[in-house]
C-alpha cells in the first residue's frame, strides 16, 4: 500500500514538472518590442490562449502558418493600442467564432463540456456506492429461514435413511456407495 502511494506521488510529481516545462515560452519567428513587462506577459498569455485557425491543434505562439503570424501581429497592435484582454478576446471571437478560444466560454452549448466530466464522476461514485451497499443484503438473503432449515434437516435425515438402506442391500454398485459416503461426510 505504502509503495503504491509512493508510486502515485512520483507520477504526479513527474506530471507537474513536465507541465511546468511546457509553460516555457515557444518563441515565434518574429520579434516584437514591448515597452513594459506586463504587456509582454499578456502577449505571451494571449497567444497561448488563442488557437490558430488554420493549424487547428496549435496555438498562436506555436504556429508558423501565415495566418498565425498575421494574428500575432494583430494581437501585438491591439495590445499596443491599449485594448484590454477581454476586448481582444471578444474581437477575435467576433472574427473567427468561439472556435478560436482554447478554453471555451461557459454557455448553454458548452455546459456538457464543462460539467459533463464532473457529472460522470458523480454518477460513477453513486454506482460504486450502490454496488457496495448491495453486498451485505445479498449475504442476509443467503442465510436460511427457520422453515428452510427444517426442510433441509428433513432432507438430510431422509438421505441418511437411504444410505442405511443402501448399505444393507448387497446389490448396490460401488460408485453409489462412495457418493453416499461423501454426502454423509459433508453433513458432518
Amino acid at each position, binding site marked *: 500500500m505504502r509503495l503504491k502511494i509512493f508510486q502515485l506521488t512520483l507520477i504526479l510529481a513527474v506530471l507537474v514538472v513536465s507541465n511546468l516545462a511546457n509553460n516555457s515560452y515557444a518563441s515565434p519567428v518574429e520579434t516584437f518590442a514591448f515597452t513594459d513587462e506586463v504587456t509582454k506577459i499578456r502577449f505571451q498569455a494571449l497567444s497561448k490562449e488563442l488557437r490558430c*485557425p488554420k493549424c487547428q491543434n496549435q496555438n498562436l505562439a506555436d504556429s508558423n502558418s501565415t495566418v498565425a503570424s498575421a494574428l500575432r501581429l494583430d494581437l501585438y*497592435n491591439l495590445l499596443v493600442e491599449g485594448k484590454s484582454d477581454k476586448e481582444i478576446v471578444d474581437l477575435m471571437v467576433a472574427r*473567427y467564432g468561439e472556435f478560436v478560444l482554447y478554453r471555451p466560454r461557459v454557455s448553454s452549448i458548452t455546459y456538457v463540456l464543462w460539467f459533463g466530466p464532473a457529472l460522470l464522476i458523480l454518477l460513477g461514485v453513486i454506482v460504486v456506492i450502490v454496488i457496495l451497499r448491495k453486498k451485505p443484503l445479498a449475504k442476509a438473503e443467503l442465510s436460511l429461514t427457520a422453515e428452510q432449515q427444517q426442510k433441509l434437516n428433513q432432507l438430510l435425515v431422509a438421505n441418511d435413511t437411504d444410505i442405511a438402506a443402501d448399505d444393507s442391500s448387497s446389490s448396490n454398485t460401488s460408485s453409489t456407495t462412495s457418493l453416499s459416503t461423501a454426502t454423509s461426510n459433508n453433513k458432518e
Partner: protein
Amino acid sequence: MNILIRLLPLVLVIALGVVLYRGLSLNPQELPSALIGKSMPAFSLTTLNDEKRLVTKNALVGDIVLINVWATWCPTCKYEHPYLLDIALNPQVKLYGLNYKDERSAALQWLKNYKDPYQFSIFDEDGLLGVKLGVFGAPETFVLDHHGIIRKRFAGAIDTRIWRKEFEPLIKQLIIEQQQGNS
C-alpha cells in the same frame, strides 16, 4: 428490469460508437464564418498595382462584390485562377482581389503570367485586413451585397461546379434584393 440494466452498458457503448463514428466524417476545417451579416471591416491599404494609391472600404461598396483572397505562395490559387478569369467576364458581379501576406513583385509577376481577373487587388502585406475578415488561409472568397454587408465566405478553390452550387443562387438573390432596394 434486470435485463434492461444488464443491457444498459451495451446500449451506451453503441450510442457512443454512433456519435464518434459520425465525428469521423465531419470536416474540422469547415468553420462557420462569424462575420456573415456584418459589415465589411474598414481598412486603408494600397493597391497591388500602384503603391501610392490608397483604397478604403468605400471603393468596394455599391455593387455585388466578390473579394478573392489570394497569394503567390498558395498552389490552390493557381488552380482557381482560370475560373476567376471567367468570373471577371460576368457583368453581374465585381471581382476584387485581396493579395494576402505576399510580396508585391512576385504578385505582380503572377498577374502578368496568368492575366489579371481583378478590378484591382488590395495589397495586404501584413495580413491585417485578412485577420479582420477572419481569413485563415488562401484561397477564400467573400460575397458582399450592395450595402457592403458580408453575405458569404467560401474557403477553398472556386471551379465551375462550386460556382453553380455555392455562388449563383446567392447572386441571383442579391440582384433581386438590389432591384427591390432601388425601386
